[in-house]
């Protein structure tokens, strides 16, 4: 940003913070350095207007609460002011431990989607007198997947409560289909990003994996167009959509094999052939079937029958991989 413009914006903030009265645009033009002076020409007036409009937009963009209004009934046009109580960050004092927690927490966003917002939040806390240590603490690098291009438009639409449309490809479908959603929020759940919202075509809440969104989602219509459910808990909506019923599976493993399975298994004692009988629990039976098949002859499924069949099916496909079958 040009230094001249930054200087003018800072001066404008100082001037409007320093007054309780609404200040007219004409007065601002006279007293804040950097605006096109009034030389009586229409060209100069136009230049000032354009510049002032851009400056107001810029300040609002970074969150400066710029008010418009009239101090008295005799004023002929609207003026501007910044109410100090709306502008200023309220008092906040953090103990060393609390500040360390904030520092650690904000590293969550390092290289992730809200990295810029996290950095400026930290700047403001420091400006409020909070000492957030830069050097202390444990070396830790949390990373929420940084490369999810659909995050930004989905997040912004949920924040502004605007309708969102995007192309979505389910893993079992060949091509993407158009979805229209009232976005409630974006969730990182077990390392993956999801969009939660009300699907307008299906008239029901839906959960979408961001990585399956094709192209860029587009927001449309006015802000604050809908209200998410009052008792909404984003993470549990995703957890609920991913939750499956738990199933029990009993397998036989040759002694000394299937170390990984045994880590989460209940031992049921030896079978008549000397194998170890193990009880496993799973909420993702097909993924467990993959895992069991990968153990080859070391692991045999006893029950349920469905799991036996699923594993035999996989083994049959795997047996066909070799040329000499």
């Amino acid at each position, binding site marked *: 940003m040009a230094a001249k413009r930054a200087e003018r914006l800072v001066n404008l903030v100082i001037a409007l913070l320093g007054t309780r009265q609404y200040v007219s645009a004409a007065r601002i033009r006279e007293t804040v350095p950097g605006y096109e002076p009034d030389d009586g020409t229409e060209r100069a007036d136009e230049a000032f207007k354009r510049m002032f409009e851009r400056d107001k937009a810029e300040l609002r963009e970074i969150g400066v609460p710029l008010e418009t209004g009239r101090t008295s009934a005799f004023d002929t046009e609207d003026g501007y002011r910044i109410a100090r109580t709306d502008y200023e960050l309220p008092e906040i004092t953090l103990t060393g431990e609390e500040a360390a927690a904030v520092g650690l927490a904000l590293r969550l966003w390092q290289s992730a989607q809200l990295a810029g917002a996290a950095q400026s939040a930290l700047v403001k806390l420091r400006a409020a007198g909070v000492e957030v240590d830069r050097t202390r603490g444990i*070396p830790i*690098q949390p990373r929420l997947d940084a490369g999810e291009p659909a995050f930004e438009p989905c997040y912004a639409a949920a924040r502004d409560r605007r309708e969102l449309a995007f192309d979505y490809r389910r*893993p079992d479908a060949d091509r993407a289909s158009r979805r229209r959603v009232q976005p409630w929020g974006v969730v*990182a759940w077990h390392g993956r990003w999801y969009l939660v919202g009300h699907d307008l075509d299906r008239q029901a809440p839906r959960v979408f994996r961001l990585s399956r969104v094709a192209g860029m989602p587009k927001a449309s219509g006015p802000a604050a167009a809908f209200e998410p459910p009052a008792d909404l808990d984003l993470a549990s909506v995703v957890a609920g959509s991913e939750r499956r019923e738990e199933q029990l599976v009993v397998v036989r493993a040759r002694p000394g094999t299937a170390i990984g399975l045994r880590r989460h298994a209940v031992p049921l004692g030896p079978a008549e052939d000397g194998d170890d009988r193990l009880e496993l629990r799973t909420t993702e039976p097909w993924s467990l079937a993959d895992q069991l098949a990968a153990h080859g002859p070391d*692991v045999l499924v006893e029950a349920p029958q469905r799991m036996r069949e699923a594993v035999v099916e996989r083994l049959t496909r795997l047996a066909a991989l070799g040329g000499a079958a």
Partner: protein
Amino acid sequence: MTAPSTAERMTRLLALVPYLQARPDGVRLTDAAADFGVTEAQLRRDLDLLWVCGLPGHGPGDLIDLAFEGDRVRVTFTAGMVRPLRLTTDEAVALIVALRTLLELPGLAEGEAVSRALAKVSAAAGHPAEVRAPVAVSVGAREQSLSVVRAGLERERALHLHYYVPSRDERTERTVDPMRLLLVDGHWYLEAWCRGAEGVRLFRLDRIDEVAVLDEPAAPPPQALERDLDDGLYQPGAEAPVVRLRLARTARWVADYYPVEELAEVSDPPGGLAVSVRTSDLAWARRLVASLGGAATVDEPAELAEQVAAEARAALARYAD
């Protein structure tokens, strides 16, 4: 989340004077630059700019005044800029969501301190509507070992691990010098120098069966370098042999998960991908192919396909009994 340059600099300029005001004894320029995440040269440009700003009238008594003493700076007149600007919605969300996430990870920080920080930050963020954040993070990795690993890192002590290695399906014991903790794709990893293997290794915390902090100091040797996560977690050597696989649609995720060298869309199977992966560990490749249950076929090496098929035939023979 506007264009960074403009918003970022304005946020900094409006915060600088209050920042100095909160530190009446002055601040070293290098510290201030680090606090704001900019170079010292940029910080000086910002201070120079602020120095000519002030209240309308812009007489000598109206301008922001700074005092430079050696390598320190303090503010002597603020022109009314005494507090930073309120948090924007995005900033409040970033803070609150991060602290809530930390609350989910009891091994990582003192829960009490996190709760208090969360309450204070929420109060300072103001509008209750913003506290209902349009983004949530659920890490879900509540590893028992997290607090012990953290203690090792904090106290800079070596750790003794019982570690499960899935690619070889075996349990190992080793002494490591911890370097840092990583959270990638929903899993916690300890990056450490493994004394036995004489190399830097990543240990997934949910595969650590037992861990103890040793009395000896952690001493990763100079050649123990943190890896660049942008290159992915798995970084096989360039000289390792090539494995060529054909992935059906349901197995395409393999290409996102492992560092594949070549990648081509193919029509056999429909919607499939042909990829090549380098690995010196054929046992790992065998487990990968076998665990895909036929959704991946092997183009190369032929013996990999033979091994997987032979194992499967042996297993089928048991089911036929």
